[in-house]
Structure formats: structure tokens, C-alpha cells
């Protein structure tokens, strides 16, 4: 059997940081609730730690994101999951899926979820976040760079993964989206975008 490839140490470090973020209190959810969201997304049980609405959100975001509608999110809100808490659930699940897919591809077992740490959510709000073309508030028009911008910690975590797994969302030389000549670990920009496109097609995502 061919040995799996070695992992870029920066990706292992990102994984470690994400697990630490997952375990500690977030903006709207406790550490225990955050870990329960991740467990639900993976198909496990939340043991009453999170609401049925949060459980449903975690599973649908993970398994059927292309079926999500504004009406469905309205229903979650009616059942007690605020839009901002939904953004936090979304951030957790989306990043989990990224790292679990990477792990699966390498032939590794999923990393066990961390033990949560005690503490209260920060409840920090973001000035200027408003509905602008999306179903959740964003700072500026809703789009890829700011999908989670209404919850600062989730926004920061997204960009931690994005730059280390793919490219930095900015111009300039190096591993950036503005660099059409980038070659990363021997994969050129055309190959990188081919992988991105193929993944998106499989997820029925047409952005």
C-alpha cells in the first residue's frame, strides 16, 4: 500500500487551533454546545446539550447545504436559534467538514472531538453587520470573504483555514488568490482551481 503523503505542518497547526477554538466558549455558544454542534454534524448525538434547532442546523449544513432556504432558517429562528447563533453553528460545521474531508482523503480516522472548556460565551456583536444580499447579517455585501463577518471569531477562524488550505484572499505575490502563477506544493493555479471547481460541483454549489 502506498504511504499517505506527509502533511504540511501549517495544516496540522491549523487543525490544532481549530480544535482549541471548538472547545472553548464562542460568541453565542458555550464550549460544550460548540462540541455538541460538531458531534451532531458528524452524525452523533448531542445528548440534549444543544437545542433541536441547532442539531437540525448542524446536520443540514453538513449533509445537504444546497437544500437550505431562507424559509428554513426562519423556522430555526422561530424555534429559538437566532441568526447570529446560526452563523456560529455554520462556522463550526463548515470548518469541521473542511478538516474532516482532508483527514479522510489522507486515509486517517477523524480526529476525536476535544473536551470542552468551561466559560460563558462572549456575546460580542459586530458594528455594521446588517442584511445585505444574504440570509444572515454581514459586514458589507454578502459574499465569500465575509460570510461569517457578523460573528468576528467565526470570521477570523474561517480565514485561518482559508489561507492555509487554499490561498490568502488578497492580491500580491506568494500564496494569494491574486497570484495566477502560484504553485503550492507542486500544484499549479490551474490544478488548484480545477480541484475547487470539481469539489463545488460535487456539492451542488454554483457560486
Amino acid at each position, binding site marked *: 500500500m502506498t504511504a499517505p503523503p506527509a502533511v504540511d505542518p501549517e495544516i496540522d497547526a491549523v487543525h490544532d487551533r481549530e480544535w482549541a477554538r471548538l472547545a472553548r466558549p464562542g460568541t453565542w455558544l458555550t464550549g460544550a454546545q460548540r462540541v455538541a454542534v460538531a458531534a451532531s454534524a458528524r452524525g452523533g448525538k448531542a445528548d440534549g446539550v444543544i437545542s433541536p434547532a441547532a442539531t437540525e442546523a448542524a446536520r443540514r449544513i453538513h449533509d445537504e447545504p444546497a437544500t437550505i432556504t431562507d424559509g428554513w432558517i426562519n423556522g430555526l429562528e422561530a424555534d429559538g436559534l437566532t441568526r447570529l447563533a446560526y452563523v456560529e453553528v455554520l462556522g463550526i460545521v463548515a470548518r469541521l467538514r473542511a478538516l474532516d474531508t482532508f483527514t*479522510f482523503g489522507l486515509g486517517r480516522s477523524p480526529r476525536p472531538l476535544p473536551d470542552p472548556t468551561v466559560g460563558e460565551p462572549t456575546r460580542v456583536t459586530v458594528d455594521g453587520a446588517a442584511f445585505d444580499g444574504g440570509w444572515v447579517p454581514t459586514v458589507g455585501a454578502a459574499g465569500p470573504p465575509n460570510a461569517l463577518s457578523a460573528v468576528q471569531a467565526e470570521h477570523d477562524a474561517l480565514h485561518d483555514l482559508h489561507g492555509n488550505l487554499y490561498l490568502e484572499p488578497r492580491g500580491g505575490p506568494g500564496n494569494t488568490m491574486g497570484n495566477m502563477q502560484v504553485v503550492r506544493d507542486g500544484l499549479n493555479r490551474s490544478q488548484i482551481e480545477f480541484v475547487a471547481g470539481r469539489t463545488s460541483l460535487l456539492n451542488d454549489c454554483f457560486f
Partner: protein
Amino acid sequence: MRAVGDASVDSGLPGGAALSAVVDAAVLRDEDEMPIARAAAIEQIGPPATMRALAVAGNFEMMNRLLDAIGVGPSPQMRDVGDAIGVPLPARWR
């Protein structure tokens, strides 16, 4: 570009078929195909590039979910791109 939507089409990229196969296996969680696709990719494009391809796939698993979950769809211009690669936009985005 059609190779994005149809794995039987030659993308013209180095290791294109291997990239398709390893992405498909990872995203679709195909436990039987994954080691086969990974080994083929390693042979054709090397271990570091295979690792990076899986990282990129992971990133777009994340981004796809973010955009679908907040209701951000393709621009009108993307309709033409979809037609060009043989992947027309579904009704919900037209």
C-alpha cells in the same frame, strides 16, 4: 473547462484524471476508492501535490457550505460559464 463537470473529458492538466478521482473519492467519502485514487494521484503528481489537492478540496467543502447556507448564489455571468462547462445552473439560481 468541461472536465470540471465531466470526469471523462480530458482537462489537459497534468494529473487531471487523478485529481478528479481523488477529489471525488474524498468529497463523496468513498472508502473503497479513496486509497486507490490517492495512490494514483501520488504516482502521477507526487505526495505533496496530492496532499495540497486534498487541502484545497477541504477548503471548498467549507466555502460551498458557507455560501449555500447564507443564500449567496452565482452572478448572472456565471450562467454562461455553467453552460460552457456542461453544468447548467439549477432552477433555484435562475
